[in-house]
């Protein structure tokens, strides 16, 4: 026998009201994340104990300012609340989360929820911030005025959570309805007329809240999703809106005017104290300043990367030493099996070790970015980006996905679902993979560790890092400009970005996210990178030609080389003769104008499934080309010593500054992530745009690498 389903409570509220923090505080770790059927919006729910073992299911819905919704996740909120999703009844109760520092605007959504006729209670969150600003809220009076339970809470500080639980219990027992606004007679009549015709046209009941959406919303999104076709809809809506106009009201403005007039009366005496200018506002005067804001942003980024390099240096050296110790421990015991010895030391330890060494940098990067995010600065970064790059035609909402793309393109592409205009969504999803994701980081870090750092110092490493992150942005912006203005002709849309207050980051939350990133990195090293290193090793090891190795050995000795150098020459000859060597040499002419030798070419080719693979591939090809058991530090040394063996550049170093920069620019721009291409295909509904993105980015990367190498070489000669 199955247990009775738990009562369901939908949590709704404006964005940035701390809705998810409250949801987390109420549900703890008892959460489930899935997808709503038929739509690509994440469904987050959790179980909450309201006391005495009374369990309920809380559903965290996407944030929205109004029920006049157009984006897919906003539409979903209305569908959930109206019970229009297949297999989901309307919730038993709605918990409306309002921001105490902006109660009037937040109550507008509560007033719209009231029209749905669903039982609802209110949690006034961020009460601590309001208190700091001198704002006092009389919750019982507000409850009396609105006709429901109201709880004051600070989810972030964990204050008032018990009051919210009590309000929810009362809501479930008494099923209170928030008092509805009174509509003027002309609007009430127009709404009745719209509801009646829509009911006949769709064959489904049309609740008053939905009729209001049909009448007041300029976009026909909800009418269309309800199945009310334009030929039947448009004459009725035109007539209804004319009736409203004749009564002296403007249909799109009537709803907010009426709700706000009523709410102002309701909030009289509820909110006391005008509120002081917050510290956030004072700090924002500097950080959002038209000229100083971008300067501060650039300084933060420079400082961030400098700290990453400086702080990660000692732990990176420990990992290098650990990998080397492991190699010298394992290698002697496998001497009877030279093939396995090479697989373990050169392949697995050489490849995975070269990748894992960047773990401290990744951890410190995510720690610092997490601190910036939690402090509230990242929303300011989106604002600065909007002001700097808004001219390129990207929707204002595009900058949040673009910023997410700096961590990983996939959540960035998924978060474009918040953009209502499908064309703007497509343009943004196309631009997101240009953002320099954390997978590019080990590639840049390898080049910095081997060349830029030792030759130019930590400051230039930071400059190179910031530069590489800017390269993606510099190409994304013109790409978006052409897409939005010429190809897709996107209409500009208004953009509202609410800036959260500055706060001290919660170290526990930040450390949890750092751990998730670190664990993901380790998992990747233990799975994809591990498997790929075995395959890359085999391709670089076979076929073995001992006669060729002997000839190389003899030739080296004839030139006066010692025994170690002769062995290295034999190993290098074997790698060049391997399948990987042959493949690299065949394709190398394509990358020759960018200054890539065959080993770099092989690294680039092996990186198309996942770009970090170049680090382990170079680790293997250089380890195999050396004596067996070469230590990790010698990868950097071997790369610095590598020279062209043939052609017009014979005898000159392969890794010059132009080559290093060309390689970094190539990785900054190239589409080298199988998962991103697949996600783009799924989000754009086919392979056309994903294929176009792959071809465009790869061609652009090649061209940019060639230009950097050729111009750099010309300038340095």
């Amino acid at each position, binding site marked *: 026998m199955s247990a009775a389903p738990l009562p369901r409570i939908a949590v709704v509220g404006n964005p940035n009201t701390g809705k998810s923090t409250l949801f987390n505080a109420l549900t703890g770790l008892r959460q489930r994340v899935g997808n709503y059927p038929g739509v690509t919006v994440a469904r987050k729910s959790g179980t909450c104990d309201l006391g005495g073992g009374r369990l309920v299911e809380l559903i965290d819905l996407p944030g929205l300012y109004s029920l006049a919704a157009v984006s897919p996740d906003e539409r979903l909120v209305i569908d959930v609340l109206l019970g229009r999703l297949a297999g989901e009844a309307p919730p038993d109760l709605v918990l409306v989360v309002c921001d105490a520092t902006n109660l009037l605007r937040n109550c507008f959504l509560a007033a719209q929820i009231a029209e749905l006729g669903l039982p609802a209670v209110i949690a006034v969150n961020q009460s601590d911030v309001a208190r700091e600003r001198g704002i006092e809220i009389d919750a019982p009076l507000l409850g009396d005025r609105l006709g429901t339970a109201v709880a004051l809470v600070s989810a972030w500080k964990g204050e008032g959570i018990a009051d919210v639980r009590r309000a929810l219990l009362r809501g479930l027992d008494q099923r209170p309805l928030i008092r509805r606004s009174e509509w003027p007679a002309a609007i009430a009549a127009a709404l009745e007329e719209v509801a009646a015709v829509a009911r006949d046209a769709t064959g489904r009941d049309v609740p008053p809240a939905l009729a209001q959406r049909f009448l007041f919303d300029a976009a026909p999104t909800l009418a269309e999703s309800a199945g009310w076709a334009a030929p039947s809809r448009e004459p009725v809506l035109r007539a209804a809106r004319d009736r409203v106009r004749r009564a002296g009201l403007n249909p799109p403005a009537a709803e907010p005017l009426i709700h706000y007039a009523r709410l102002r009366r309701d909030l009289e005496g509820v909110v006391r104290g005008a509120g002081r200018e917050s510290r956030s506002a004072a700090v924002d005067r500097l950080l959002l300043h038209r000229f100083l804001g971008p300067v501060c942003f650039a300084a933060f980024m420079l400082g961030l990367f400098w700290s990453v390099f400086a702080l990660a240096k000692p732990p990176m050296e420990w990992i290098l030493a650990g990998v080397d110790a492991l190699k010298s421990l394992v290698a002697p015991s496998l001497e009877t099996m030279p093939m396995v010895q090479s697989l373990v030391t050169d392949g697995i330890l050489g490849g995975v070790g070269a990748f894992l060494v960047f773990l401290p940098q990744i951890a410190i990067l995510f720690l610092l970015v997490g601190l910036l995010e939690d402090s509230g600065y990242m929303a300011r970064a989106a604002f600065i980006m909007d002001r700097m790059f808004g001219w390129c035609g990207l929707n204002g909402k595009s900058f949040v996905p673009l910023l997410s793309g700096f961590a990983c393109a996939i959540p960035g592409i998924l978060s474009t679902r918040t953009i209502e205009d499908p064309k703007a969504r497509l343009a943004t999803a196309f631009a997101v993979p240009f953002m320099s994701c954390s997978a590019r980081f080990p590639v840049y870090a390898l080049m910095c560790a081997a060349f830029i750092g030792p030759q130019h110092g930590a400051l230039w490493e930071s400059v190179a890092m910031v530069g590489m992150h800017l390269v993606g942005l510099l190409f994304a912006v013109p790409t978006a400009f052409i897409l939005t203005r010429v190809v897709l002709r996107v209409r500009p849309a208004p953009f509202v970005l609410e800036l959260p207050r500055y706060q001290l980051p919660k170290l526990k939350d930040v450390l949890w996210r750092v751990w998730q990133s670190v664990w993901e990195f380790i998992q990747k090293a233990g799975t994809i990178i591990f498997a790929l290193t075995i395959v890359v090793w085999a391709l670089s090891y076979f076929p073995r030609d001992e006669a060729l190795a002997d000839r190389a050995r003899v030739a080296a000795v004839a030139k006066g080389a010692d025994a170690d150098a002769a062995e290295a020459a034999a190993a290098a000859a074997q790698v060049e003769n391997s399948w990987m060597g042959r493949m690299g040499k065949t394709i190398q002419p394509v990358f020759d104008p960018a200054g890539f030798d065959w080993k770099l070419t092989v690294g680039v080719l092996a990186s198309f499934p996942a770009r970090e693979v170049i680090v382990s591939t170079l680790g293997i090809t250089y380890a195999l080309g050396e004596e067996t058991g070469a230590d990790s530090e010698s990868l950097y040394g071997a790369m610095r010593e590598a020279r062209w063996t043939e052609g017009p550049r014979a005898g000159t170093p392969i890794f010059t500054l132009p080559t290093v920069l060309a390689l970094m620019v190539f990785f900054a721009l190239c589409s080298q992530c199988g*998962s991103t291409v697949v996600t783009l295909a799924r989000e754009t509904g086919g392979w056309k745009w994903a294929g176009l993105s792959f071809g465009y980015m790869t061609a652009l990367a090649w061209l940019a690498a060639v230009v950097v190498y050729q111009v750099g070489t010309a300038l340095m000669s």
Partner: protein
Amino acid sequence: MSPDALIVAAALGLAAGFLGRLAWRTFASRRNSGCAGGCGCASKLAKK
């Protein structure tokens, strides 16, 4: 076949099998509705 070659062949077979399965899940299978696992970030959305 020497034990040396046997171990290497087994390791290679396992690695190729793992990568093949991953490629299938990424490009062909519709089992994962979000990210197919390459970077691991969004796959959390798909996992219940």
